[in-house]
């Protein structure tokens, strides 16, 4: 029913935009990763040295491993907080469901920076938490290790990604046909058994989507480490950021970015495959 002119009019501008501002920049990133820096200038000397450095220099492997550990902890904590919350809203919240749902959604879109800053004021050595502990006479001196540690990064990112993880899980739980649960109980399964054998398997696609989201976004985060992580909480994106800044080695930074991009896209691909396999038919 739509004419050729209509179709080209709606499809050409966005395709051109995607080509110019997504595809071309990614290509440039890859091209940069094959160049080198000599005496503070980027030279167009094609080589694989940057990638070799990544695989041979133990420092990068160490930071990448720490980043993966932090991202995995964030994912796990977000699921442990987000799943029961989604379960509660889907099955037990009753009339308050809409309001509670809105209460989860609001922080999802509310300033990353503001929430990160809030943690900084809470965890600092003269921060709110330390003030609170001393007020209760639980400690007498400020505790220094709350802030500027991998722990603080995990805490802050869990706070940010719990609503993200909640959302697809909740959607999956809401889509489970209720007669299935009744059937399970009629056939003699208790609520624990119904959860493990019916609800959890059927919510797996949502769980997977949420987990992928939290893991991938934590993996590439560089602001949380700067804000609350300190030197011991440095993540891989901080290395990239410093290579593009003070250290001025764009080609090496580009190579790590390509690595992050490849890891991200592989994870998305993998999670989509698994989601299809587990999808409720």
């Amino acid at each position, binding site marked *: 029913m739509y004419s050729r002119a209509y179709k080209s009019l709606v499809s050409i501008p966005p395709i051109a935009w995607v080509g110019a501002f997504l595809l071309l920049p990614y290509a440039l990133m890859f091209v940069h990763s094959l160049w080198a820096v000599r005496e503070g200038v980027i030279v167009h000397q094609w080589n694989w040295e940057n990638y070799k450095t990544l695989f041979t220099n133990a420092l990068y492997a160490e930071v990448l491993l720490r980043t993966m550990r932090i991202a995995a902890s964030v994912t796990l904590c977000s699921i442990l907080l987000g799943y029961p919350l989604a379960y509660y809203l889907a099955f*037990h919240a009753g009339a308050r469901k809409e309001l509670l749902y809105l209460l989860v959604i609001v922080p999802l879109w509310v300033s990353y920076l503001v929430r990160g800053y809030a943690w900084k004021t809470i965890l600092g050595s003269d921060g709110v938490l330390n003030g609170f502990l001393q007020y209760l006479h639980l400690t007498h001196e400020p505790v220094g290790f709350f802030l500027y540690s991998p722990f603080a990064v995990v805490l802050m990112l869990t706070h940010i990604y719990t609503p993200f993880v909640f959302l697809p899980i909740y959607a999956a739980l809401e889509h489970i046909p209720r007669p299935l649960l009744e059937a399970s109980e009629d056939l003699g399964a208790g609520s624990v058994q119904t959860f493990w054998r019916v609800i959890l398997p059927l919510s797996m696609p949502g769980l997977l989507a949420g987990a992928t989201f939290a893991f991938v976004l934590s993996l590439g985060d560089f602001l949380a480490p700067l804000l609350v992580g300190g030197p011991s909480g440095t993540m891989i994106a901080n290395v990239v950021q410093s290579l593009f800044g003070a250290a001025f080695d764009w080609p090496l930074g580009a190579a790590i970015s390509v690595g992050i991009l490849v890891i991200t896209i592989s994870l998305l691909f993998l999670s989509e495959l698994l989601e299809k396999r587990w999808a409720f038919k």
Partner: protein
Amino acid sequence: MRRSPLLALYAAFVFAFVYLPIVVLVLYSFNRDGVGGFPPRHFTLRWYTELFADSAIWDSLLNSLMVAGASVALSLALGLLAALALDRTDFPGKTLFRRLVLLPLILPGIITGLSLLMFAVFAGVQLSLITVLLGHATALVSVSTTELFAGLQKLDRAQEEASLDLGATPWQTFWRVTLPNLRLSLIAAGLLIFTLSMDEIAVTFFLFGRDNTLPLEIWARLRRGITPEINAISALILVVSVGLIVIWYHLRARSLGGGSQELL
């Protein structure tokens, strides 16, 4: 529905975890002795009056408003076309196109920011608020496309067909039928994009020139230390964004029917 006090308690704990930092932040913006210490003792509006006298903050707010306004216009226009293209046309590479458009939604901001930085250097463009806008629009077209695509899928095609059958041109049909029907989706998507653009920092970080956006200005001050003034501006940002999000939520629920739609 069965009662389950333990689960309800756990849900309350999660809500506390999500909201406590925000409450603490707002509370201490009124504390005379500044941020830290417990309990907050003396109420004051001093930090807000200092904030209102701080011209650097307001300059950066103005920059952010300009960027956000332009981001909304650009992302909505491109997102509308992209959503129409995904909904109604077939072309080679459509799946790839869909994936690429949505990629910035899930890609860490540093990748989007850096790839566009390299693009700007390659094209010989100087970093400014224009490059920031470019970054925001590129990242946020993913949001408008998903939102508007969902809106289009809910539209009743019969109206458009009737309009075309009755002799209206495709152009007239678009302006008089499609667009008005999509009104709520457009406003909802616009509000969301505005909020996200006002808050954006990961992409902006690599693309700004001489002029700061509000989040970058706050970031720069944070590097120097915590001040109650940042609590005050944060509290104001919170109030405004919560307001916009609540409006967005209701509009979206009205346009898509039922609030619990998948967002991602």
